[in-house]
């Protein structure tokens, strides 16, 4: 207020005192004359003030303008023509630094991070040389579509205490990525058999068939001969590399089976699964155990040492239908084994590989010295291995996917010629089929940990690692949840702390399914397959008092189906190591084989080893 002391004068118009008339010349002292006439009245001097707003040209910070002059027209107001002087009393003002929009952009943390990534990429050589990869690891997240990767990334971040969205899964750090078109030759939305055959052999084929081309007739054993294809694992084996297959599904299930078997039907996992008409076709379990013999028979004179590693579930397909062979199941509950030919393929495997180790439990697995084990065969469940979240419930104990990946690499990297390893997280797919985002996402997180373990244990200069999915699922991330909202939770809008209501006046979850068995609230149940024991319950439910973040919550679904289904959109391919830069753009899924073949020069090396 002190600054404005002069403005007290503001609106006042001050009239100066009137002037008297001029004096006459000095004359002789005369007589006192009569009184003179008064002179004319003088003119008033006026001052006017006005408040100036912030941004004024003369006072950028605001202030007061003081105009002064003579009221020549005597109207008591200071007209603009009467102003003879103007002064400004300005408030203090610090002019802003000129805004540098470019600097503002470049200094942003997001910008810097992106710039660093591109700079780093630019420093890398994009020139690939055939055969630079000594080792190849193919990771397949079964059913791990893009929405699954995103949701798992957020969940992993939130489990680490982050908001989540900014988190990066292990393979999200890989320098190269692309997309794969997943369709089968005869199916718009594919299955694992056809897609994995494409990845392993470089040839797309029909849904439900394994290691054979599209001329196959599914379920017709007689059409197998002449339509078989050789795959990357077989080429690696012939080339002298160590080979391994790891899965949390049955090791005879479609994805792992496509690495070593040829079958007109993915379901011919053991002899009891085949129709009588397929008597001349070996079941998938038998093909695993006789992999070495079958390969040598195909190329007379060839001498290979067989699969060094095979680990997963599916014990039932290797054991006779006889309770005396049970490993975990109570004898009173029936036989674990399904085989009706009385063959114990685990014993046959041990007879073939006298140096091998066969394990069923976590304790047995943990006792294996990978550096000194030439062959390792692990069957940890009679059917699929448990979901990662449910692993603690297993009677005999099961290793995690990262544990199996670590052990597999320990065994395989004993071979100086390098190795080929396929690792599948098979139960991501099953979690989705059961409508359980919790199971699918926690298995995806474990899958990412397995990838991280492989990165840790291998030399990036000589190991091509590809991470991809065989197909997607009808799994969505929907609504407008605010940043950091629990990914398994109900949608809470930006600026709100309570669930957003849909037009039916009920809350809804961020994650959901287009089809499937629908809503379940099974609390702490960690086995997603528990859903199959309950009738289908699709459509909207009132979730107001339901904890949707529990393991046993199954998301709502729209279309009732006996099981949630695959989806047909592209899936991601992530790559690091020699040959990785070949993974870019949108590709037929079968290109993955060609990337692996080029990187490790599999065909040339295999041909060099043929007798």
């Amino acid at each position: 207020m002190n600054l404005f002391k002069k403005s007290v004068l503001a609106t006042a118009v001050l009239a100066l005192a009137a002037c008297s008339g001029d004096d006459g010349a000095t004359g002789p002292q005369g007589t006192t004359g009569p009184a003179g006439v008064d002179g004319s009245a003088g003119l008033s001097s006026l001052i006017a003030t006005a408040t100036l707003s912030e941004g004024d040209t003369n006072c950028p910070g605001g202030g007061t303008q003081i105009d002064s002059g003579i009221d020549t027209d005597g109207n008591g107001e200071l007209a603009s023509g009467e102003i003879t002087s103007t002064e400004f009393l300005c408030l203090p003002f610090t002019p802003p630094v000129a805004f540098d929009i470019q600097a503002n952009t470049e200094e942003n943390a997001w910008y810097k991070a992106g710039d660093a990534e591109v700079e780093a990429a630019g420093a890398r050589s994009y020139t690939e040389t055939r055969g630079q990869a000594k080792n190849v690891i193919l990771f397949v997240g079964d059913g791990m579509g893009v929405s699954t990767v995103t949701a798992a990334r957020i969940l992993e971040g939130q489990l680490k205490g982050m908001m989540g969205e900014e988190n990066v899964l292990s393979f999200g750090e890989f320098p190269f990525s692309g997309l794969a078109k997943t369709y089968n030759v005869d199916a718009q939305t594919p299955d694992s058999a056809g897609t994995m055959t494409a990845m392993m052999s470089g040839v797309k084929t029909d849904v439900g068939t394994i290691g054979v081309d599209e001329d196959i007739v599914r379920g017709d054993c007689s059409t197998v001969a002449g339509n078989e294809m050789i795959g990357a694992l077989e080429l690696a084996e012939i080339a002298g590399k160590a080979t391994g297959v790891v899965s949390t599904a049955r090791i005879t299930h479609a994805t792992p089976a496509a690495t070593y078997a040829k079958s007109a039907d993915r379901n011919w996992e053991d002899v009891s699964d085949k129709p009588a008409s397929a008597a001349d076709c070996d079941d998938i379990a038998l093909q695993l155990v006789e992999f070495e013999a079958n390969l040598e028979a195909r190329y007379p004179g060839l001498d290979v040492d067989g699969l060094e590693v095979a680990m997963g579930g599916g014990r039932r397909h290797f054991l006779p239908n006889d309770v005396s062979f049970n490993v975990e199941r109570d004898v009173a509950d029936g036989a674990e084994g399904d085989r009706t030919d009385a063959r114990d393929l685990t014993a046959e495997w041990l007879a073939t590989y006298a140096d091998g180790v066969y394990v069923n439990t976590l304790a047995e697995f943990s006792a294996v010295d990978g550096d000194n084990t030439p062959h390792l065969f692990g069957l940890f469940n009679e059917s699929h291995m448990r979901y990662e979240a449910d692993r603690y419930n297993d009677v005999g104990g099961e290793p995690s996917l990262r544990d199996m990946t670590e052990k597999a690499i320990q065994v395989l990297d004993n071979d100086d010629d390098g190795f080929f390893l396929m690792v599948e997280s098979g139960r991501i797919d099953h979690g989705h089929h059961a409508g359980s985002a919790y199971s699918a996402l926690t298995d995806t997180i474990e899958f990412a940990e397995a990838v991280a373990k492989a990165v840790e244990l291998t030399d990036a200069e000589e190991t091509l690692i590809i991470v991809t999915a065989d197909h997607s699922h009808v799994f969505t991330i929907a609504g407008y949840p605010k940043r950091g909202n629990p990914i398994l939770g109900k949608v809470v809008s930006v600026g709100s702390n309570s669930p957003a209501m849909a037009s039916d006046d009920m809350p809804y979850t961020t994650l959901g399914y287009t089809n499937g068995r629908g809503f379940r609230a099974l609390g702490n149940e960690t086995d997603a397959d528990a859903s199959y024991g309950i009738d289908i319950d699709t459509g909207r439910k009132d979730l107001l008092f339901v904890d949707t973040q529990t393991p046993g919550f199954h998301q709502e679904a729209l279309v009732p189906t006996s099981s949630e289904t695959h989806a047909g959109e592209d899936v991601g391919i992530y790559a690091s190591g020699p040959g990785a830069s070949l993974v870019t753009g949108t590709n037929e899924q079968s290109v993955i084989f060609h990337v692996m073949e080029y990187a490790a020069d599999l065909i040339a090396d295999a041909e060099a080893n043929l007798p």
Partner: protein
Amino acid sequence: VKNFLSVITLFTCAWLLTACDSRKIKAPSYACDDLDMAYFGARYHVQQQGLNDEHVHHEEASVFTLWRIDNKVLHEYDDQGISFLYSNGSGERLISHQFFDRDKRAIEFDSKFIPENQKNSLWSQKKNLVSDALLSQMKKSGEHGKNCNKVEHLTFESEEFNAELHWLPAFELPFKLEIVQKGQHKHWQLVDIVGNEADIKQAMLERNKYLSTDFADIGDNETDPFLRNMINLGFIDHGNSGFYDSDGNDIGSHHH
């Protein structure tokens, strides 16, 4: 069920299904010494009436057979050609197989969800049709007969439903069970005890030859016509007693 039809009739009353009106049913008279409690079938005639102001507006009749096979129990729905095999497995699981006799296919899963502390109750309900929990809440009003033909008269009343049970302690099975609840009246009547060990084992052997699929694998096999049809057939796992309260809970496993 045709696999089980080479039966030995173990009780002297020859019950005709058409004559299974509860008012006409006679007391059981089994030849106790010949019974093998580990292997037999209990065939029931099931009548279900929809009530509207105590007037019957809808009526259904069906045949259901409970088979005891050593430590397993098979629930067979004759009309639908579907049966469920339950095995009281280790841990908190109830192993279950679902057989579709007409298609000679099976679905299996070993992870039936059971809420905590309910496994024994559920198993008793599968094995005996009435759970231990419900049985313990019923009031005994009388009994007649002796040895394996002894029948206990039990009743239960609640806001949800009323039940009248004629219980065979030797078999741990109902001889007669009537449930009345809002809009519904169900009546189960034991009409036959059948089977012998050899026949029952052979029938199970045949079922074990069915092409079997895990529940978890159905989603990867939707191109299979049989599995596609399962959507329509349904997974009628809760069809074991057919009695439900107003919330859809199975009355047979009633507990508080």
